[in-house]
Every structure is written in C-alpha cells, then in structure tokens.
C-alpha cells in the first residue's frame, strides 16, 4: 500500500470514528474552569474593560435558582460575541454566543445559579473585551416540603 493511500484511508477512518460532538467546537478548558478568572482566560478575555453599553436585564431576585431568566445585549458597535459567567457557580462559564453579520448581539436564556451571585456578561467587539455585572439574589420559594 502506498504511503499517500494509507494516509488518506487513515484520515478517513479517523473522520468516521469521530463522534459528531467533536466536530463542533466546545471550549473544554473555558467551560471546565472553576473560577471566573480562569473562565475569562479560557475565552481569551482575561481583563475585560467595564462597559455601560452592555445590558443585563434580569430580576434582582430569583425565586428558584434552577431557572434564572436573563436577557443580555450589547450596544457596543461591532459586538461579535457575548459570554455569560455566573461568578459563584462551580463551573462559572455558562454560555458563549458568537454573532455573525446579520445577527443582533442579543440573547434571552434561562440559567441555573447555585446561590446569590453576580452575573457577568462579557462582550467582544473589534478584538477588545468589555464586561458588566449584575447581582441576582437566589431565594427559597414555597413550603420547602
């Protein structure tokens, strides 16, 4: 068997054996980070500049930490990504959204929060990083039984 053919076949076999999951990018080191600082480093946004142009719309009090609704958007021109960091979660990085031309830097989603904490949103625009935070109190609802 010639070398080229072996290489091609080998590559093909490796491609077939690759689970679909591996084809899509998922930033394992950033999502596996255990501190907000490491999570920010993991997405290449170690020292974001504070910005008032990032909007975090969320209730100040969440009755249930399992579902905390947050609406995030950025008014910074050229925003190409938004990341959500839940500062006191065991794995702080919750999500990262990349927006191509034609998508608005806006997302509404529900996240889980382990306890009362700051939610940090990091926006990337023109290769620079910006961030804003908002505290959300997590409480106990209902009879607790």
């Amino acid at each position: 068997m010639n070398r080229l053919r072996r290489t091609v076949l080998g590559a093909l076999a490796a491609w077939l054996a690759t689970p679909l999951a591996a084809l899509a990018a998922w930033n394992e080191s950033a999502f596996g980070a255990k501190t907000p600082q490491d999570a920010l480093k993991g997405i290449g946004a170690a020292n974001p500049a504070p910005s008032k142009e990032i909007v975090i719309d969320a209730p100040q009090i969440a009755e249930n930490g399992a579902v905390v609704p947050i609406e995030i958007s950025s008014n910074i021109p050229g925003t190409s990504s938004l990341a959500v960091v839940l500062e006191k979660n065991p794995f702080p990085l919750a999500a990262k959204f990349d927006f191509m031309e034609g998508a608005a830097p806006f997302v509404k989603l529900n996240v889980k929060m382990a306890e009362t904490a700051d939610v940090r949103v990091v926006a990337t625009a023109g290769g620079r990083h910006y961030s804003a935070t908002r505290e959300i109190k997590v409480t106990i609802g209902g009879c607790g039984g």
Partner: protein
Amino acid sequence: MAGPMKMRATLAGGYTEVRVLMTHPMTTAQSGQPLHFIQNITVKLNGKALIEAEVSQAVSRNPVFSFRLKGGAKGDKIEVTWLDNKGESNKIETAVA
C-alpha cells in the same frame, strides 16, 4: 431519541425574533446523574449560520432561547440545531411569520 423542539420566528420592528424550545434534561455534574447537556447551538437563516453558541450544564432544563436576527422577511427559513455531550442532536426548521 431526542425530545421535541418548538420554534417561532416573527418579524418585529426591524428584526426577526426567534424563540426556540428544546427538550433536554441538562443534568449537571452535581446532580449525581450522568452529565448530559447541550453543548452547541446553531441558528441559520436561509442556510447561512448567523449565531453559533457554546453552552454548559448551567443552562436550565428544557432550554428556551430568544435570538434576534437583523432584517429578515416573511417566508425566510430559520433552522436551529443542537448537539449535546453524548453526540445526540436535534433540529427544527420554520418559516418567518
């Protein structure tokens, strides 16, 4: 088999609002159950990817997302795909109303 999805895409002002629901347990490492959560979400408009998201187990069970696409017209095709850590995936397509 992946559970059902549901999606609505509506024109509102100058943008298309996309609201998508996914059936998924989104189990965490702390729950004692096997880790099982969506990792990637792609939103496409007429076949072109406009939003690529990476998410963690911190997204709530049965995830619901709203996105906004600039412009858009009635009948445009919106497609949302998700892929989880076990390699399971699902997809839904709808026309902008």
